[in-house]
């Protein structure tokens, strides 16, 4: 398949050996912390940690370069949009205005605005490694087992694992349908007018969706025949018991999480104000 996607890479590293439960909990704590805080100091510490765990995971940079490029592009667009819509956001947040120079009207460059953009960018960058590494280092089946272990009902966990299992199949279906329609002369490119293109696209999504409905029928009948859902609990083939390293990682990361939250909120503002 021509389209590259993120996915699990088999490799032996400290991060790979951690249990899926540990990684899932850390991922959740990490994204919560990064979402809540705007404190530059905490974001910088998280950034350093990201580099460390990235190094530990032995994932190579070129394996994720495509995704990284996409993130950077997105970041750039977002920063531009923020500046265009609200060039005084930083001044409002930090309560002072240190003007560096003016471009036009209210579009001046202030130290506060630059600092705000720096924080937004940092926030984006810091969320990424946790999610990225979680996806790359956790086997899909183990992911479902981990979800169940942290309290998600097993029927929902199975749904998630079905989704991951059938992603490649449905992608292949999509590719086939799309190529068949193109061979019949249906054009999805910019050469067609918008209304016509909408119509052409529906010639892909109709067969794709209706064949998926058939798939749902088949799979649910197969599961029914095997008495899925008879018991209130189930065991998982890929579940890994927690080791000493897991417990240690969990305790340390929970402590760090609590410290981060306390530092963020103790002065009543999510922002660290150097001005």
């Amino acid at each position, binding site marked *: 398949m021509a*389209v590259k996607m*993120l996915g699990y890479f088999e490799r032996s590293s400290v991060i790979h050996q951690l249990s899926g439960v540990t990684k899932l909990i850390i991922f959740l704590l990490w*994204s919560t912390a990064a*979402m809540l805080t*705007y404190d530059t100091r905490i974001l910088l510490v998280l950034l350093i940690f990201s580099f460390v765990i990235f190094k530990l995971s032995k994932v190579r940079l070129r394996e*994720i370069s495509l*995704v*990284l490029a996409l*993130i950077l592009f*997105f970041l750039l667009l977002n920063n531009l*949009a*923020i500046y*265009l*819509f*609200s060039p005084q*956001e930083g001044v409002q*947040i930090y309560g002072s205005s240190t003007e560096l120079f003016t471009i036009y009207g209210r579009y001046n460059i202030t130290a506060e605005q630059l600092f705000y953009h720096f924080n*937004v960018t940092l*926030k*984006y960058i810091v969320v*990424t*490694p946790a*999610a*990225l590494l979680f*996806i790359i280092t956790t086997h899909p089946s183990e992911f479902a087992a981990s979800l169940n272990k942290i309290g998600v*009902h097993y*029927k*929902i966990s*199975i*749904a*998630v*694992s*079905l*989704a991951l299992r*059938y*992603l490649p199949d*449905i*992608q292949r279906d*999509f590719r086939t349908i799309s190529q068949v329609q193109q061979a019949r002369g249906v054009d999805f490119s910019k050469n067609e007018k*918008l209304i016509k293109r909408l119509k052409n*696209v*529906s010639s*892909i*999504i*109709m067969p*794709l*969706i*209706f064949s*998926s409905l058939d*798939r*749902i*029928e088949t*799979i*649910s009948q197969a*599961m*029914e025949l095997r008495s*899925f*859902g008879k018991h*209130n609990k189930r065991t998982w083939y890929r579940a890994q018991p927690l080791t000493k390293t897991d417990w240690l990682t969990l305790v340390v990361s929970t402590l760090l999480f609590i410290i981060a939250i306390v530092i963020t909120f103790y002065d009543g503002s999510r*922002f660290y104000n150097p001005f």
Partner: protein
Amino acid sequence: MFKNLSIKTIVAIGIGSAVYFVLGRFVTIPTGVPNTNVDTAIAFLAFIAVLFGPIAGGLVGLIGHALKDALMFGSVWWSWVLVSLLVGFLIGLAAHRIKLEDGQFGKKELISFNLIQVVVQIIGWGLVAPILDILIYAEPSNKVFTQGLVAALLNIISVGVFTSILLFSYSKTQSSSSSLIKED
């Protein structure tokens, strides 16, 4: 809450999330304005919500959107993922009484479905998403509200066109409950 889910609903959540991902990743129609696309995944989400109900709709929104974000960008934009959950759930809740299995999807159902989706999506993308963006990410309010309104408009168009066609074609494949005539 999840204990009594039927097997079919569970499978629909799983497969639905995968289809949502594929549509969201590959089948978007650029409008000509940079960075704004008509997204077909949202149309599928509304379809699943009508067919399988609010829980399936909500969870396909949650899992599908989170997967799409994670596998495309390596991080999850939670504020918008939560809105997908909300939109799927609410459309499912309001529109589940449309009985497609009886092969009935006429003018009346078409209008009531579209009223529901317009209201739900304006609340979701135009109101809840920007508020969450401000609360979580502290972004400028005029920026996120503009983004939200554009997204609401595009998604309403997408659902209005594609989901309506989907629902109509689906109802055609079901045999109508009143198609049998008693012979004398």
